[in-house]
């Protein structure tokens, strides 16, 4: 466990300045939102920052509906998402995912979508869900603000497009005039287990729905719009073409298992889309 200093910037600009100052001074910053992954890693000595930048007083705890998108601040917890009638109505997939976050009420009250995207765990709920929703990530530094599509933000297992002096300020999710029908299937091995494979499905104008798989490749895997009766073949075909360096495996399950169950998960997510509005 390393000695570090904790700062609580009053706004995102101050947070960005703190990051710039730390990096310029040769230090290692760690940005904390919910901290449900970072704090245990700190305790285990896996992260060794010199400055801990805690966003909890930076005014990033709001959900704001804009024209064409909803902006979810970096410290908005899954419980806030669950409690938001606007999100329940306009982004039902996110609402559905937030209700099933592993860890129960303590984690739901602490963990954030922005934090999960920064952690970029291939098997977590948030990355594949954000990709399915076409989310964009609002990235801030003293050099300015940039808006990054989440598929570009997530660059690998545990890797993102963030520079050392950048922080995620918010996540933007496009919303259309009417909410899109959705389905979500998640496989985990016990209540306490992190997800192993997930499938997030959103209805499209074309027949069927688009499905994004989590926990199969190192980054979320988007499938083309597919009708339910073809999904098994489409998944199998897509995974057969996946380069080996993108295969994901961890303690819970190897690649062969993930590949084997992915068609089932995708089909279940699609079936849920159909069930939602028969």
């Amino acid at each position: 466990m390393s000695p570090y200093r904790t700062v609580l910037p009053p706004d995102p600009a101050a947070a960005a300045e703190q990051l710039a100052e730390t990096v310029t001074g040769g230090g290692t910053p760690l940005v904390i939102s919910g901290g449900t992954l970072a704090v245990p890693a700190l305790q285990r000595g896996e992260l060794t920052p010199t400055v801990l930048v805690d966003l909890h007083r930076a005014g990033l705890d709001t959900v704001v509906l804009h024209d064409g998108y909803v902006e979810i601040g970096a410290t908005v917890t899954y419980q806030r998402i669950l409690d938001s009638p606007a999100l329940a109505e306009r982004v039902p997939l996110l609402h559905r995912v937030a209700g099933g976050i592993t860890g129960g009420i303590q984690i739901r009250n602490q963990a954030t979508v922005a934090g999960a995207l920064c952690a970029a765990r291939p098997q977590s709920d948030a990355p594949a869900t954000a990709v399915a929703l076409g989310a964009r990530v609002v990235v801030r530094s003293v050099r300015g603000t940039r808006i990054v599509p989440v598929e570009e933000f997530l660059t690998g297992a545990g890797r993102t497009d963030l520079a050392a002096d950048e922080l995620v300020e918010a996540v933007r999710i496009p919303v259309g005039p009417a909410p899109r029908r959705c389905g979500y299937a998640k496989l985990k091995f016990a209540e306490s287990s992190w997800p192993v494979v997930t499938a997030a499905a959103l209805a499209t104008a074309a027949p069927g729905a688009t499905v994004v798989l989590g926990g199969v490749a190192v980054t979320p895997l988007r499938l083309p719009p597919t009708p339910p009766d073809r999904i098994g073949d489409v998944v199998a075909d897509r995974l057969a073409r996946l380069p080996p360096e993108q295969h994901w495996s961890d303690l819970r399950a190897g690649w062969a298992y993930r590949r084997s169950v992915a068609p089932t998960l995708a089909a279940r997510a699609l079936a849920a889309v159909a069930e939602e509005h028969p």
Partner: protein
Amino acid sequence: MTSSSRWPRTDAESFVEGRATFIDDLRPEGLAHLAVVRSTRPHARITGIDAVAAKAVDGVLRVVDGREARLHLRPMPYQFGEPELIGGRRSSLEALPVERVRYVGEPVAVVVAETARAARRGAAAVTVGYDDLPALLDAGPFLGRDPLAPELERHVIASHHVTAGDAAAALARAEHRLDLTFSVARSTTAPIEPRGYLASWDRAGRLTVQASHQQPFQLRAELAEILGLAEADVRVVVPHVGGAFGAKMTGQVEEPLVCLASRLCGRPVKWIESREECFLGGGREQVHRLQVGFDATGRVHALRDDMVVPVGAESVSPGWRQGWVSAASFPTAYDVAHVDVHSRVVATHVPPWHSCRGFGKEAPIFVMERTMDLVGRRLGLDPAEVRRRNLVRPAQLPYRTPAGFLIDSADLPALLDRVAGADDDGARDDAGTGRFVGTGIAVEVTPEGGGHAAARSGPGVPTTSAAPESAAVALTADGRFEVRTGTTSPGSGNETALARLAADELGTTRDAVTVVQGDTDRCPPGTGNASSRAIAVGGPAVVLAARGLATAVRAAAAELLGADTDELVLGAGAVAGPEGQQITLAELHRRTGGVPACTRSYRPEPPEDPGYRYSYPYFSSAAYRARVTVDAGTGAVRLDALTAVHDCGRVVDPVLVEGQLHGALAMGAGLALSEASRTDDAGAPATRSFKEYLVPRANDLPEFVLGHHETPAPYTLLGAKGAGEAGVGGALAAIANAVDDAVGRLGGSPVTTVPLDPPTVLALLHPDGDVR
């Protein structure tokens, strides 16, 4: 007041309200904290330990490595009985190694600092040089009976051979024979509260150790020996314990190290284990290669088994003894004439075994119950029917098992009948969603009460004897009673039952009785908590002491009242006579200057048989039925129902017995489906938190259905048999059988290993596919 009323625990409120005191709540003046530097190599020579950077860390007071520790500490003696009695070698090890590390996670130095955080920082700053040696991580080469090469033979801690009849001949003539291989993964215990010790020395050189521990008197003896003290100069006090399950038995190296650190620093020193450290230890792993011979009726005549039990690095803790219990447990609940079990207990380069609830009895139940199902399947027999034809029957009792255990009471067929038809809620397969229902049953016999070194006796065979428990009961000045006992509670609440047993003898209620446990200065010696003894053995000691005190109190009252002892009645708070004469207990205490406390010891004494050594004194039993849903698309298993009918003899307190059973069933479910202690290819632990080591949560478990079936133990005073371990093996086996039932109907391979995590089950469903 009935003896089985559903009273809550006496101290339940203090736990619910967070007032109960655990070891980490103790923060004496001047407290310093200890952290442990642990090996990062599975097997290596230590080339050097550099503590310069650690000593420079702010707040660090002292760094102690093996070279310094050996100047102050004698080697740690082997704990828990005589290993030679069960064919094992007597290990004696230094608390910190000087030459060689033997597993990832082995302590190599300790750091003491002003704060726990500074201690951890200091520990991280210690640099240890290693010269790697070959590591043995796979015990596969030890399977079988062929002589071992010398370099392998060195790893064998114990060899066991349990026989009855002539298994080879019986197998050769058997109408049917199955060759089976089974394995059980390494797993661990997961007490809510990990281990922790707090040591301090007074000016006179007397050591006080507060410890989250199961065995205060054994810890006192161990520390006295290692530290070169008289036992009278060591006091061990155990505050509330948040679960133990075997992990808190004596023999862990941090026990003396905390005491040494405190002496060297001249301050109280505390160590609280982290979850990652807690998950280093483990147990239960074994591999079986089995041949079973049976006839066309399903009657099993012969069983031959080669076992390997990899127990991790050699240690002084009782861990590896569970390997003996496993071998000796065969053929569990069944009457098999010809048995030949050969077992090798093997040291490997992973963390040492510690005692794990089930204590070696759980894996044989899995093996035998899977075997019974497979015998039945071969012959087209219903699982309940094949068991009925092989169970030890009441008419055969007392029944001597091949290892020499004497099953003295049980009605196994009745237990089986009570679960065989249970739980038919009409659950059916749903091919549309790919979900398939399976049911499984299991029967368990659980030897309890310690003294497990069973064997045939004879010239030159050392004898064994029953360990007693003791209790002292006293009348206090305010007219209440105090029970001091050598048994302790791991958090199970046995103090509630002990208070009630005393109250029943003293004509009062539980509320008038205070139970004192876990203080070597105040309590009579005992074994703490192990092998389900607190009520079955500790209970009678309390009853006898309370009975003795009641007589003494009535005699004292008789003198004061001028009455006849026999006509006086001890009631709530007073002694009363037939003519209205009465004296309160507080007044009696004042006028007599106190009645001497009554101390009694008790040991269960099964009838002596010159042909056999003393062994487990009582045997609980149970039958189980599990229902699961197998998701054929993913291999995921959901446990939908679990029924247990349990015979622990007389149920002294149903709330506590059922609490024990709930915990054991949950543990068995975890072992069946999700719990496995895993290491990476280099022997480093890979299951370091509850995110990797998957203990079932409430939502993973159904509402358990429990029933009791009481056949009193003939050789314990209360007829109680112990309720601490049954359920682990039974639930494990019943759930495995239930999964097998569903997988088998889908054309999959038989279940031969646990845990049945989804990749394992999917591989069973696709024997020819690459799905793992």
